[in-house]
Every structure is written in structure tokens, then in C-alpha cells.
């Protein structure tokens, strides 16, 4: 856990360094019998920006959720930085999750709660037992949350209810919530699937900037081929829970995408260029 003094010395930049991610023979079978991941092994270096591409139902959401333990693995091990996530419970698991930011397709904000308190959720993992029990926020929590909101350009909406914001604005607040965790890894599960094309590009650029400026490891689920090519250097293809592609994103050919999708390329597999 970061001490206030260290963070103050480091200034604006987050104190935490990026973490590598390692999946070793990971399989996930849900209680209803569906197998979502079959024997997936992956090595992602600290500071990489990687996309996971596949159709819905291919296991991308499951894969990204094994990294912060939202989905427990049935077999294999998941390692993030110095921690083995698989098998962790309770307090230890929450501590690891505190270092892994996540944004979602549906933004996942509490709509009746204001932007400020939604962002502060990112500080919960860093609060000690007493602060957690009493539900109080420290001056540093406030400062980190407000700085994160400023970074994504949402500081002027700090007292608005989340429901009053547009989709793009809500996703920015969700990014601020994740950033205020001062994370070592940033996960994004279909972050632009509910947004219109210009807003989608803006949010992807934001993730690109986070990767470049903060040197965070960024893992982003996408189903659109051109977004994967434009914004990420490395691409992982999933089909029916199996890893079918792992290589540079920019050079991935149409044939590679057809293999990942398991069908021919259709117009809706592309979003369209940046405007």
C-alpha cells in the first residue's frame, strides 16, 4: 500500500508501477455446465496494450474477469504482478483487486449517486479497516478522485447525478473511478460497444493515453477489428473459449479475423475511421 508521503514526492503521477499478467492453462466452466475458457495460456508484459478480439460468447468477458477474480478459474493459474489471483479470497483478493482497474460496456455507475461519490468507489480498496467501517474518506482519497475526474475532463460534472450524463460522459467517469484506484493494470470489457463512433474513438484514445502516459498494462475486449488494429499493438483472438490468435494487431490480415470470427468478415465488424 502506498504511503501518503511517497505519493506526495511522486507528485501527480501514480506511484504504482505496471504489472505483467500471466495465464497458465486457464479453464473456466460455469456452474450451469457451460465451458467458457479452454486451456488458455498467455503472457502479457508490464505496460503492454493488448486487445482481446472475438464474437460475443467467445469467452472474452470471462477471460478478463479471471484477472481480477470476478470469475474463479476451474483449472490453471492466473498471476498478476507478484500475486496469484486464483485461490485468493476475502481481504487478500480485495487488496489485489484494488490494483486492477476495470471499466465495463454498461459503464456500471450508480445512476442515482453523484459523480463524486461514484468516483470515490475507486478509493475503497485503499481504506483501512476503521475507515471502511465508518465509511469516511480521507483528504487524500478526495484529492486522488478529483484529480482523476480532472484527467478525463469531467471535473465540472462532479456534483451531477450519473443518470444525468451522456453515455460517453458516464464512461469517462467510470475511467476516472478506475484511475483513482491508482491501478497497475487496466481492464476494459467492451468499453465502447454502447457508444456512437466518435465517442467510441474518444474513449479508445483515452485508454491509449493512459497506457502511454501512465505506462499501465491495458487489456481491452473488443469485437470490432479496426479498433483492435488502430489502438493496440498486440491482439489475442478467442473463439469458443480457445486462443486462436496471438500476434501483432496492425499486421493481422482479414484471413486472421475470419479465423477468429469463424465466418466471413461483415460490414458490422468495422466501426469506421476516426473523425
Amino acid at each position, binding site marked *: 500500500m502506498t504511503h501518503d508521503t511517497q505519493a506526495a514526492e511522486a507528485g501527480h503521477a501514480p506511484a504504482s508501477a505496471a504489472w505483467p499478467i500471466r495465464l497458465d492453462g486457464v479453464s473456466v466452466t460455469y456452474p450451469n455446465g457451460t465451458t467458457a475458457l479452454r486451456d488458455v495460456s498467455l503472457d502479457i508484459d508490464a505496460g503492454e496494450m493488448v486487445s482481446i478480439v472475438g464474437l460475443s460468447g467467445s469467452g472474452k468477458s470471462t477471460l478478463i474477469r479471471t484477472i481480477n477474480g470476478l470469475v474463479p478459474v476451474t483449472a490453471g493459474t492466473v498471476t498478476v504482478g507478484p500475486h496469484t489471483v486464483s485461490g485468493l479470497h476475502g481481504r487478500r*483478493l480485495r487488496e489485489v483487486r484494488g490494483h486492477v482497474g476495470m471499466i465495463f460496456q454498461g459503464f456500471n455507475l450508480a445512476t442515482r449517486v453523484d459523480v463524486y*461519490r461514484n468516483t470515490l468507489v475507486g478509493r475503497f480498496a485503499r481504506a483501512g479497516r476503521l475507515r471502511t467501517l465508518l465509511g469516511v474518506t480521507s483528504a487524500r482519497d478526495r484529492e486522488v478522485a478529483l484529480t482523476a475526474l480532472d484527467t478525463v475532463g469531467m471535473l465540472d460534472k462532479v456534483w451531477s447525478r450519473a443518470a444525468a450524463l451522456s453515455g460517453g460522459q458516464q464512461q469517462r467517469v467510470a475511467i476516472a473511478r478506475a484511475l483513482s484506484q491508482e491501478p497497475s493494470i487496466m481492464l476494459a470489457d467492451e468499453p465502447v460497444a454502447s457508444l456512437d463512433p466518435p465517442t467510441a474513438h474518444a474513449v479508445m484514445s483515452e485508454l491509449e493515453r493512459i497506457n502511454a502516459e501512465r505506462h499501465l498494462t491495458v487489456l481491452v475486449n473488443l469485437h470490432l477489428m479496426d479498433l483492435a488494429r488502430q489502438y493496440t499493438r498486440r491482439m489475442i483472438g478467442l473463439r469458443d473459449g480457445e486462443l486462436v490468435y496471438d500476434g501483432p494487431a496492425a499486421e493481422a490480415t482479414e484471413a486472421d479475423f475470419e479465423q477468429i470470427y469463424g465466418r466471413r468478415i461483415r460490414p458490422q465488424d468495422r466501426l469506421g475511421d476516426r473523425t
Partner: protein
Amino acid sequence: MSPGTTTEPATRLDLPPRPRTWPRRTLVFSALTAFTVATCLPAIGGIEIDLAAIAQNWRHGAANLSALLQPNWSFVPRTIQPMLETLQMAFVGAAIAAALSVPLTLWAARPTNPNTVTRTAVRAVINVVRAVPDLVWATILVAMVGVGALPGLLTLVLFDVGIVVKLVSEAIDSTDHPYLEAARAGGATQGRMNRALALPQSLPLFSNQWLYALELNVRISAILGIVGAGGIGRLLDERFGFFAYGDVSVIILEILVVVLLIEAASNVLRRRLA
């Protein structure tokens, strides 16, 4: 519709065969009818509904009714104090129940309490509390803590907690809470995310039921006095005992007015809070 299809004869639709539901419907309907008739047959132990009693006794009823139609307005001053006691019981009972209902509801709903053991335990206790009728609670509590407003108040609290916890926890169960997944992903404890997010998000559900509990309290506390649990009900019971129908009539009218006022007020509040 495209222009081509309007002129051409309608193509035969490949309609799947319609499922036959009438035999089943007839069976259910006749079973319900047979059961209803059977419960009214004294020969097989059914309840006896003697309609002739109405014809024989309606004169007594009419005499009582005409007495009730002559309210004794001079009795009004004596009803003020018990009526205030009833209102006090209703408000204080609703307030205490509201405070108690928050943690209990969050314990009883799945999204806010993933632990099956504690959730089932809280739900079981609430179901037992709800299964006991309010007058039975009042009778038990009068025996335990004595005659007066206190047993009435305790009855109302138990009754309200049962209603609010059951209805609100079921409403929380049946809605999506994506923000809880996000908070969990960020390493928050269940307690902290419940307080910071789930509670403000569910507040309209709570406030609706709190107001409903208040409305019910005014109505119920008028009755509770009959078993000795204080308020206007005790006076009502006493005046009935003396066959003072003029006084009874005043009390009934007063209860009616107060209930209508409380309902109107809570309707206004409900609209504001939505």
C-alpha cells in the same frame, strides 16, 4: 409495407398449430367452483352461512345504524388526547421501523448479501414476524409489557419491519445492480458498497414502503386499542361497551378523516420523492 405486397393476394403464413388450452382451463375452473361450493356445505364440515339471519336481525342493525348517524359532537374534546396518542404511536413506530428496516433489508437481499446462510436466516425471522397477525402480536405484547401505548408501538414496529423488509428486499432482488460488480472489481467490501451505492440507489424503494407503513399504522393503531394497546382504539372499545353509539360515531368519523389526510399527505410526498 412495400407497394408490391398490397396488390398481390396474401401469401399463406406457415402458422404453427395453436396449442389447445380449453380442456385445461375448463378443468381448473370447474375444480375451483366445486371447491367453493363444497366449503359452504355444512353436511361435510363446511362453514355455515345462514342468510336467514340477515332477514331476522336487520332491525337491530337498523336501530344501531340510526344511532350511529347521530354523532354526539360534544364528545369531540375527549377524543383529542387518545387520537394524538394514536398518531404518536403511528409516527414513532414508522420511524423506528424505517431505521431498523435498512440493515435488515440489505441483509435479506441477494445482491447486497451474497452469504446464503445469513440471508436465509434474516428472511426466516422476517417471515415468522409477518406470519403472526398484528392483533395477536398486540395481545402477546400487552401480556408481556402491560396495557398502554408501548405494546401498541412495539406491534406497529414489528408489523412495519415485516412489510418493508419483505417488499424492498424482493424489489432489490429483482433489479440489476451493475455498479456493485464495478465496486467489487475495485476491491470494495460488501458493507461499504452497500452503504455508499446500494442504499442511495434503492432509497426510492425504501421511502415508498416507509410511507405505506405510516398509512397502515394510523389504520391499525385505531384497532389495537381493543386489546388494550393504547390510543383511540381503547376509547372506541370503551364507548362500545357503554352502547354510546353517538360517541362511537364521532370516533369512527375522526379515524376516517385522519386516515384520509395521512394518505393525501403521503401521496404528495411519494410524487416528490419519485
